[in-house]
């Protein structure tokens, strides 16, 4: 199963360790919070990904299956997928 990095945005406090350990898939925004490359983690990168996950001081980084709805990258521009009020059950 293909996996990708998922950030728990509430837990993350911008320590920046992940981008330092795993720049192949993680960079930081202007405020130090991680931006995850939507491409999944290829097998050759799994070791680095696991390291970044293990070293996050807030344990805010996770590896999740690409099919896991929580791990799915949010679609770029889906206007009617944006409602705050009633997110659809089960994801898009």
């Amino acid at each position, binding site marked *: 199963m293909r996996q990708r990095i998922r950030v*728990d945005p509430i837990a*993350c406090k911008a320590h920046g360790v992940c981008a330092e350990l795993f720049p192949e898939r993680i960079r930081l925004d202007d405020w*130090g919070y991680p931006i995850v490359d939507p491409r999944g983690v290829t097998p050759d990168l799994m070791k680095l990904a696991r390291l970044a996950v293990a070293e996050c001081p807030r344990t805010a980084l996770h590896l999740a299956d690409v099919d896991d709805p929580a791990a799915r990258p*949010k679609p770029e521009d889906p206007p*009617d*997928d944006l409602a*705050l009020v009633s997110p659809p059950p089960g994801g898009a």
Partner: protein
Amino acid sequence: MTLHSRLLPPMPVAEDYRAHVAGFGPLPGGGPALIAELDRAGLTGHGGAGFPAAVKWRAVAARSKPGSRAVVVGDGAETEPASFKDRTLLALRPHLVLDGLQLAARTVDADRAVLYLSRANDSLGRTVAAALAERRGADTVPVEVATAPPRYVAGEETALVSRLSGRPARPRTVPPRPYDDGVDGRPTLVNNVETLAHSALIARRGAAWFRAAGTPEAPGTVLVSVSGAVGVAGVYEVGYDATVGGIVELAGGALGTPSAVLIGGYFGRWCAAGRAWPVTIEPRSLRRIGLSLGAGVIAVLPAGRCGVAESDRVLAFLARESAGQCGPCHVGLPALAATFHAVAQGDERPAALDRLARWVLEIRGRGACRHPDGATLFAASALEVFADELRRHLRLGPCAASSAAPLMPTPVLAPGWR
């Protein structure tokens, strides 16, 4: 353009329970057959996401079990400043909403039913309490009223669940979604109050009747809050075959030449008036030009008003209303709003526009809830639709229209989440 009168009475007079039953007939039983009927009707949610109602109801019904019975919640918090259709519906037809809540509770086997309202609206709370007292003997599942702190994201589904579970009304990461793990860990059905009112009508009149309005793909009617530079701001009930321009005509037409229109509220987008005018509000046709009706908001900006100044205030509002949990939202939105403001004031270099364009892409999708997504979509539309005006502000400072009284409300809400 037809004004419908399914949910809202032709005259704005509230009905008591007896008149309500006399007009609409007794409440049917609910149950699995009603879910099938909602499915055939094609009813979708009116809180903004437009998710099929039957799918939600079925998911919660399947999970309700002894020891962990379902909870149903009618969401009437309506924290979107440009929306007033939920409070209008609740004030004029409280019993239609309460019928829907009752039917939902029976159908998904709930033993707890809650109507969730904003604490900021006392008179609405009294109207609903009076309506509940009138029908106490008729309701099989007792209904309680809960109030939300008057914060923008407090009406979001997971924030509502947190609130009703005794925690602050702030969103949380999904999954788990409320239908799996909602109020006190129980399967929870959250429906916007308008969705519940439609359900109460479908239960009585059937799917074919519901489909007689709207289009085959987007059946039924929708309540639209129309505001800004129009003759008569208010809530208009229309079918999904209505055009943006037609709805504005129903509201007495635009005052002055419209320059832009905000569709979908502060989570929606600006669109040049000429582009939006002929488009129907059917989700598919709006999506074609990058828009969504959201919870049914249309606000008209006339020529001679400054879209930059309006957007500036709305962005500041959205930044203030971050729940403060996720960095990209909590830190990113204030930075976005501050830079936009500096551009509006002419205190920035042109490169600031590139930075704003980058931020709206980078911030999107990185919060636990969709507050940052909505705010950045709004910002992106302002950057696009008011591109020329923004460059003029950069060069010359705020335009003369910038000092006009605000068209879009951007209240400073009481702090706190309890």
